[in-house]
């Protein structure tokens, strides 16, 4: 096993041991913190498909995160108010069922990624960043000025949505759901990375003209990557909203996009467990330093600076060394 595999295994173990200990020591807040980290990690695994595999610097992933959040908020708020979401031409009711909410969240955020991708992938580099940012801001201000679903104040849900057979209000059970999703996303990432699609996407980042010369369209590869990426981040958004029982436009803000990107960069771009390490580190730092000073992000900034300047592989790169041999 390589050092990176050991590190990945250790991280995975920590995701089981830490909440397990918290359960034993009766520290539900720690479980909530871990849930937060796992959901952020899931969102960042989504971004890592676009950013790490595809080299697409998207500063608009909060769009997908927020759409996932609002999918949960809108469906659940209709269900708790007993009003239909839509009455014409056919009736659509709200729902408090997590699986349905997930499905809607993934579908909606993937569709958004498709539309954004079709328009933004015509450009590259700094223009791509700007267009994704512009879509993010559009969605943000749209959410703020849409009074039906809370506008600036956001939407609150009284009771967490349900999953058959589980009591999602018990922190450890909800944590379990989130962890399973994270593991599925990581498996998907690992599979994609080794698939012809992932390899071609990787190659398209390096030499697009050569990829065309073997008969593949780099833009289509990138579009597919963005759609998968958006879907995963959207799912994370739905879970995040369920964790807080609250969704607000701040989930759509560009700061949120930046944070998701910070998770990936701190943890290690294009590393399987980079997003997990990054999100875990972020939540830990937020918790430890947030109590010391409300300006704790200064330390985060310093760390980010150090990672970008000295350790390009992020946390995973620092511990496990450069990617691959040779």
């Amino acid at each position, binding site marked *: 096993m390589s050092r990176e595999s050991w590190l990945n295994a250790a991280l995975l173990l920590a995701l089981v041991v830490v909440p397990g200990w918290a359960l034993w020591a009766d520290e539900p807040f720690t479980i909530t913190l871990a849930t937060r980290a796992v959901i952020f990690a899931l969102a960042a695994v989504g971004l890592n498909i676009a950013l790490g595999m595809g080299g697409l610097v998207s500063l608009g992933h909060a769009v997908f995160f927020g759409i996932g959040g609002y999918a949960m908020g809108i469906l659940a708020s209709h269900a708790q108010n007993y009003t239909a979401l839509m009455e014409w031409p056919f009736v659509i009711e709200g729902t408090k069922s997590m699986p349905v909410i997930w499905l809607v969240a993934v579908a909606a955020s993937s569709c958004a990624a498709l539309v954004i991708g079709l328009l933004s992938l015509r450009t590259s580099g700094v223009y791509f960043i700007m267009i994704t940012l512009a879509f993010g801001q559009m969605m943000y201000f749209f959410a703020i000025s849409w009074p039906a679903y809370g506008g600036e104040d956001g939407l609150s849900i009284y009771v967490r949505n349900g999953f058959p057979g589980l009591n999602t209000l018990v922190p450890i059970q909800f944590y379990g759901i989130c962890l399973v999703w994270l593991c599925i996303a990581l498996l998907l990432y690992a599979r994609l990375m080794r698939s*012809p699609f992932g390899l*071609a996407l990787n*190659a398209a980042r390096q030499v697009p003209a050569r990829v*065309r*010369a*073997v*008969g*593949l*369209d780099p833009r289509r590869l990138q579009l597919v990557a963005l759609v998968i990426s958006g879907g995963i981040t959207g799912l994370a958004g739905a879970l995040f909203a369920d964790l807080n029982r609250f969704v607000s436009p701040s989930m759509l803000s560009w700061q949120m996009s930046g944070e998701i990107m910070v998770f990936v960069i701190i943890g290690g771009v294009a590393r399987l467990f980079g997003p997990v390490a990054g999100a875990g580190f972020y939540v830990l730092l937020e918790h430890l330093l947030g109590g010391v000073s409300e300006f704790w992000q200064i330390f985060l900034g310093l760390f980010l600076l150090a990672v970008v300047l000295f350790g390009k592989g992020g946390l995973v790169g620092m511990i496990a060394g450069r990617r691959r041999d040779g």
Partner: protein
Amino acid sequence: MSLLSLHRVTASYGASQALFGVDLEIAPGQAVAMMGRNGMGKTTTVHCICRMLPAQGTLVFDGHDLSRLPSHKAARLGIGLVPEGRRCFRDLTVSENLIAAARPGHWDAARVEALFPRLGERRRQRAASLSGGEQQMLAIGRALMTNPRLLILDEATEGLAPTVRREIWAAIAALKAESGMAMLVIDKSLKELRGACDRAVILERGRSVWSGAMADLSGEIGETYLGL
């Protein structure tokens, strides 16, 4: 009927015209050598065929008009390019380079490794860490993985050691003998081209000035156009 047919093809890089009228015919299974001194338009012609450079004139591949296709569609029709300067996917391993390009057909990773045993030995190595000759073999292998009907080799032996050159020429000969794949070969070595190709076309200042059977390529023509 020819597989690839170029008629009066012209092309420019911005304001400067590079091709002034290239005619080229390749029949299925035929190996054609494209010759000419440096800067006479050989690579430019290849770029036009692969749709990496806009061209005017008639470009038909297997009944399809190439002139409106994006380059990846041209490749999908069955044009496999081994580019000048190799250009492997440096961060991918040897086998990943092959997998990324793979399309169903006769050629798969096992057949490529049988053709170039050295690639099999270096399967897990990153392309960037290979020697020049191995990278060239990988570039050929990658083009074969797309299962092309026309393989274009642009300076496939440039800058390589004599033993490696021999290996590559042997592989080209094997390809021709076994698969009957059509080929367009650009190279500096007339001797090797004579052995490998059936026909030849000579470019001079962006025009095709001579074409015919390899056997008819006389010393006089070589002297005039190739500076031999």
